[in-house]
């Protein structure tokens, strides 16, 4: 691991000033915030990240979970994944988020990992994580070792000729279906970013994964007020029953009016280069009867533009079945 300077600011302003000195907030940032450390320390050990400065933000007052004015829930950036997953309001009003969090990582990791850190977790692509291999995400223009290599765990949606790395998060898929917003404090003040605008698909710049700029510090994630009468559910399909990333997952929020779907939000995990909002599926579902035929049509629409790589073609059918099963489960609970 390369040497670094360690600091521990006591205010958000101090943290923002420290972060602002970084040349980038993206891959190879020279100033990095550390909270839980479960991604950053992992990548620093692999020399995939080697910041000159590590700014420990754990002393900042960002751990609270409280009601949002006007309804909804504000989750502090430093709220630990386990705290959020077991929070009574989250379990009651946003069960898809609790289920997603509890399906991920391990109890130990969930006790360390933070809400904002989870937003920023990195791909598990083996070539990204091994500096012996060419990787456009680490160094654009050097090539993608995964295309034509081992890509079973990688993306089929949102890919480019330069990168097919999948986003492995569960939390962020749930947050996407819940239409969460992300509050950021930066060098120029604070702003709110809807989660569907937060992530960047790889395109020709796979090193840029989100819209954050140097100095930007996520301070909270806000969930809108729950829709009365809605149900939500998270289904994660993977090789093992636990302690494994998704091959395909689906977060569903749905509200029925009688037998018709009045409201639907569908987000996919394990298959996208970013947490994948499927408006295609939602468009099929909206206003239609909640039955198997509708769910199958929605699944087809969701995967219509899928572009599998050499080893992950099975994900197309798996993701469709995941959507159908998740919709079935969610609507049966209504």
């Amino acid at each position, binding site marked *: 691991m390369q040497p670094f300077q*360690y600091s521990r600011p006591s205010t958000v302003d101090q943290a923002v000033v420290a972060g602002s000195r970084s040349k980038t907030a993206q891959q190879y940032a020279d100033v990095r915030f550390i909270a839980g450390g479960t991604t950053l320390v992992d990548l620093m050990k692999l020399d995939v990240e080697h910041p000159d400065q590590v700014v420990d933000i754990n002393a900042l007052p960002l751990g609270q979970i409280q009601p949002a004015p006007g309804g909804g829930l504000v989750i502090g950036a430093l709220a630990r994944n386990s705290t959020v997953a077991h929070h009574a309001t989250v379990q009651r009003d946003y069960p898809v988020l609790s289920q997603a969090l509890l399906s991920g990582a391990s109890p130990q990791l969930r006790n360390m990992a933070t809400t904002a850190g989870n937003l920023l977790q990195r791909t598990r692509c083996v070539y990204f994580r091994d500096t012996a291999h060419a990787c456009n995400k680490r160094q654009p223009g050097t090539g993608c070792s995964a295309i034509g290599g081992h890509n079973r765990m990688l993306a089929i949606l949102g890919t480019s000729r330069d990168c097919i790395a999948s986003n492995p998060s569960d939390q962020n898929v749930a947050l996407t279906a819940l239409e969460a917003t992300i509050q950021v404090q930066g060098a120029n003040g604070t702003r709110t970013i809807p989660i569907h605008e937060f992530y960047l698909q790889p395109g020709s710049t796979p090193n840029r994964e989100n819209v954050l700029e140097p100095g930007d510090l996520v301070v909270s994630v806000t969930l809108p007020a729950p829709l009365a009468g809605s149900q939500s559910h998270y289904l994660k399909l993977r090789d093992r029953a636990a302690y494994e990333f998704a091959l395909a997952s689906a977060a569903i929020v749905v509200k029925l009016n009688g037998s018709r779907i009045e409201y639907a939000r569908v987000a996919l995990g394990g298959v996208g280069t970013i947490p994948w909002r499927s408006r295609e599926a939602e468009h099929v579902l909206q206003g239609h009867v909640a039955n198997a035929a509708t769910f199958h049509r929605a699944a087809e629409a969701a995967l219509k533009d899928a572009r599998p790589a050499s080893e992950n073609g099975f994900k197309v059918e798996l993701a469709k079945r995941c959507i159908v099963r998740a919709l079935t489960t969610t609507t049966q609970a209504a």
Partner: protein
Amino acid sequence: MATDRKSIEVTEQEPPGSSAEQPAAARISRRSFLSHLGAAGIAATASPVLAAAAVPAAPPVEEAPEAAALPGAIPVTLKVNGKSQVLQLDPRTTLLDCLRENLNLPGTKKGCDHGQCGACTVHVNGQRVNSCLSFAAMHSADEITTIEGIGQPDHLHPMQAAFIEHDGYQCGYCTSGQIMSAVAVCKEPVGPSDEDVKQAMYGNICRCGAYPNIIAAVQAGRRFA
């Protein structure tokens, strides 16, 4: 025909200083022998981080280890098993390496060093965490508990006793992490069934496959928590 024992002399090499008559505490273990040997030998060949980690050999936990003249070292105060100590650390030192190398608490094990096996599980402020994925410097305000802190050979924690009673280990390498996880489980909202225990303990893997006995041990130990 019987082997003539008188004509065969088997000389067993014993570690220097060891003797059947000496009490166990005075015998030099392999660990301390290598530590005393190693400060010069290892430092000559290893990277700066390894050299720095090897320098404080085996001081008792009560004394502060000698501050190595280490460029870039920062002062870190750690409270481990109820005792506070000030250390001079390379910022890259993980909590795991600090416990094992700087504080002479080797009960916590390094399995994967990447948060994927749970062998390094300790408690930070009562919560179980993987000590390999945290820098020691991040824990100045925290209370850290290791396997050494939850019980002693003559006064075992009920969970340690349960692991012995139920033979919840084979090679023992994952065991301190299993026990630290299991102790934490006693204070978490975990259901009563074996399946619930499996769900709660899946962050600790066991290459020997002692899982059925581990589950039995956890179920027994949590009755006394």
